[in-house]
């Protein structure tokens, strides 16, 4: 369990949607790990969760019709699912 939390945090820190310094990014998004864990089993739910974080929690300019932003979010979603599947296999 500890490992999956660390791995999710690493993905979030790499994503770093606000763009804080690297050493801060490892602490910046920890609060969203429980939310992500709750929806990580379902890709659509996970996408909704990430969009909710961007739009409602961080209030950044996220536009789902923007190709670049949408692809960025899809990649994060894929990485999180990989982390989850890897943890399940172990």
């Amino acid at each position, binding site marked *: *369990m500890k490992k999956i*939390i660390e791995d999710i945090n690493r993905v979030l820190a790499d994503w770093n949607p606000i763009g*804080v*310094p690297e050493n801060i990014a490892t*602490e*910046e998004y920890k609060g969203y790990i429980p939310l992500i864990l709750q929806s990580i089993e379902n890709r659509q739910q996970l996408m909704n969760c990430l969009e909710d974080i961007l739009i409602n929690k961080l*209030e*950044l*300019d996220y536009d789902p019709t923007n190709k670049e932003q949408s692809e960025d979010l899809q990649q994060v979603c894929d990485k999180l699912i990989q982390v989850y599947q890897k943890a399940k296999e172990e």
Partner: protein
Amino acid sequence: MQGREFAGGMGYRYGFGSQESDNEVSGRGNSYTAEFWQYDCRLGRRWNLDPVPQISLSDYSVNGNNPILNIDPNGAYFFGLFGSTKEQRQTAEYTASRLGGKVNNLHSKSISVKYFTQEGSHDESGLVTIKAIGHVIGFDKNGNSTNRYGIRTEYNWRHEYVISRKIANGHLVNVGTVEVPQFVATGKLDDPEIDPVTLAIGIPALARAFINSSATVAIGRAGSETAKIAAETSTSVIKGFTQHATNQAVTRGFKTADILKIVREGTPVQAAGRYGTQTRYTLGGNTVVVNAQGKVVTVFSNAPGTAKGLGKGHFIPFE
């Protein structure tokens, strides 16, 4: 407890709290597993951090440190066996969403909802004064509520709230609507006396109110010439705090007055991120990030913290 164990059939896989025994970890009956925890019953602690941490409890605690009164079927949330009911929780959550408030102690016996209303005004000099009025409503097992002033809110089958006041002989008198009395937080946005807790709960409500009324909360004296110019420049005006910024301000010990000082006196730098433009204000190693809409997105400092990272990014006091 070591030395004591259930002597049922060896094929039975479950034990404490109906959770699956994990006998390969630390011997028979000493470790249990569930979706969100690995639990060591000799220590009464979990191996992993609680995925839903609570400020008042250790992240390694289980069952709210009370295995008699509380249960935790999957290791994510503990529930009071004699505590909250589903109706109580649902009504509290509904009320919180309706009022834009926050549910406290969701899984304990005493559930309450805390929310703020606010009043804003300008004095002759143009100083913006905000009065945040805090309210707390508690909910009983049937989802009805009575606050500490004897005002009762009953949630009826028509999904309406019937509000009544308890009078001296114990009878309830319907009062229709009620102004719940003030309990906390009257001050000005730049008042150094406003503490982080007030900031955490009050500012989002203030921000919502001001956004709804299309008003602008200017920093400092909005009536002064400098502030008027600043108010016309979007980057010099804070229109509110995001939920994320509020959480980080509390966690990292940034008070309202500190944030305002950084924005007012700090060095602004414009930055274009993947998700919109930002302005970053830096003062004394502290940084405040403001988005294009004028909302504070996050706060942090360059404090390195301890070797284990404690205190990293926390507020650095001004000299």
